[in-house]
């Protein structure tokens, strides 16, 4: 018998299938909002800008990105570059090898969902263009609609985009990369971004 079959057989022999699933979690009606999300984001080492009007987005973003990049490479997904127009960002094709993005100073990506209870932002792999981009860059800038804020993880996962779980990674990012492995001292920038900036975009 294969290991698969013998494992499954042993499991079947020792379980009765009598214990029922408790059902959906009765999520308390917390209220979520951009300000609440910002407050939490700061506690996890992130920064926030906005909310800004969509028409003003590129104008607000340009100096922030230029300052953080200080001459380094700024990358955004091709579709995002089109929307933002003229700026320090260059588009990235989604089929280039990730190793070519090793020296990116600032990456600008779209976020799908923001979670008030923990400051996490859901980033869809397809919005990153190249999956490794949000982890390779020094500063990660995430653009979010203020309407995308949900109160907790229950609602966040209920709001997952249709194609989020399809040949992609969907990553919840809460603040910059961090570690406390040396004597419990918090250090920002362990492997991934040293800074994370969330930019809220006003609903029209």
């Amino acid at each position, binding site marked *: 018998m294969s*290991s698969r079959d013998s*494992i*499954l057989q*042993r*499991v079947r*022999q*020792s*379980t009765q*299938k*009598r*214990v*029922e*699933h*408790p059902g*959906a*979690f*009765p999520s*308390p009606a917390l209220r979520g909002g951009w300000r609440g999300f910002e407050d939490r984001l700061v506690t*996890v080492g992130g920064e926030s800008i906005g909310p800004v009007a969509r028409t003003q987005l590129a104008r607000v973003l340009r100096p922030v990105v230029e300052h953080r990049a200080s001459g380094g490479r700024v990358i955004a997904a091709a579709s995002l570059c089109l929307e933002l127009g003229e700026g320090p960002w260059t588009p990235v094709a989604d089929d280039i090898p990730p*190793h070519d993005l*090793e020296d990116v100073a600032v990456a600008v990506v779209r976020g799908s969902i923001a*979670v008030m*209870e*923990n*400051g*996490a932002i859901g980033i869809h*792999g397809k919005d990153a263009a190249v*999956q490794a981009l949000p*982890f390779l860059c020094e500063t990660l800038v995430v653009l979010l609609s203020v309407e995308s804020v949900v109160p*907790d*993880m*229950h609602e966040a*996962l209920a709001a997952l985009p249709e194609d*989020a*779980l*399809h*040949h*992609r*990674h*969907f*990553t*919840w*990012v*809460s*603040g910059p*990369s*961090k*570690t*406390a*492995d*040396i*004597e*419990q*001292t918090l*250090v920002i*920038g*362990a*492997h*991934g*971004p040293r800074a994370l900036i969330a930019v809220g975009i006003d609903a029209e």
Partner: protein
Amino acid sequence: MSLLLQYQPNDVKRHDEAVFDLRLRRDRAMQEVPDFTVLKRHAAAIKAHTLDHLADYLEMFEAKAHAAGAKVHWAADAKEHNEIVLNLLQHHGVRRMVKSKSMLTEECQLNPFLESHGVEVTDTDLGERIVQLGNEPPSHIVVPAIHRRRDEIGELFHRHMNTPAGETDPARLTEYARQDLRSRFLDAQAGLTGVNFAIAETGTIVVCTNEGNADLGMSLPPLHIASMGIDKIIPTVDDLAIFLRLLARSATGQHITAYTSMVTGPLRSGELHIVIVDGGRTRLLEDPSKRRALGCIRCGACLNTCPVYRRAGGHAYGEPVPGPIGSVLAPILGSGPVAASLPQASTLCGSCTSVCPVGIDLHKLLLEWRHGTAKPDPDLRYGLRIAAWLMARPALYRRVMKVVCRGHPLISKRWPGNPASRWLDARELPEFPPMSYYEKRRSENR
């Protein structure tokens, strides 16, 4: 190669405080969640349900992961797991692999196995990298190098990465490690990760880190291998919310880890292989009185609060998973020299039970083991028999104690030929008074 490092007298105190600080952070974070007792009960109920339907959920997970393009492998034990991983690596001509935290691969002793077959494995979690360079196992499942001081880590980095001697600043040490590991990420031909949760209804694996090391390992090399125990399954995406709300809060007092990635199928340019491992878990499942231990999500909260773990440290357990949950798993999953007797090394104070986010009554499980199959340490039984014999003979006992009080330095120091040497390897005897209580009272009353 062991560290040249010196034990310092306040190391035990430092470890105790560092670990208990995590416990206090956990308390604050959990108290902030208005419904956390409900959350905990719900988590326990989902785990009980999942374990009771585990075969169905494993099959569902396999089918969905397969449909998403992942290849699923099954391993009965550590040996089969290691061979599957090696075959995959050899098939892809991999010489260099990066690895993010996985307690399962510690359990399987994967690193030494792969290295003996010429694969260079780099642990990328900073804490795991530190213990890898020090050639020692992790001492904690969440913070693997919590037993090391910053000066020891600086010395290790100096020796292995040629960093300046005497550097002890955590920020600078972390930066050196970042630079060194970044080049290893870019060079790696494969990335191996653990799995925090595996969602049956979608075939998704979920990987949580704070450093982002798993994400680099999963997205740079073309080959991603994920190793998971059969106990990592949860039924639905909805259920994931419950566990994500509990895991980081219980582990470090964070509201969620900095990175939580949901991985469904391989990236367009690569391959994803998921290895599902039994490794004794079905034997735990067979025993209805201990089955619930498989509900553990490896947050480490029970370690952080345990009076024994805090003072003894993780290495004293001789198992990849130490602390209360480690002691519960060890009699079946363990292989170390004291695996069977670990349930004896507990105060049964119940602190572990009170902090467990999935409601496992750990102290009762420890007691279960004591009642039943856990074998007492033969040395201990021998010693207890001698003690009982001696205590039944008061006159002889007093004479022996007189000798012991005066001759104590001979016993408590390690010297070649001291019969207590082995026992003293991991312990220290307290200072003895110069006289026994009996002698003292006699001399006072005279």
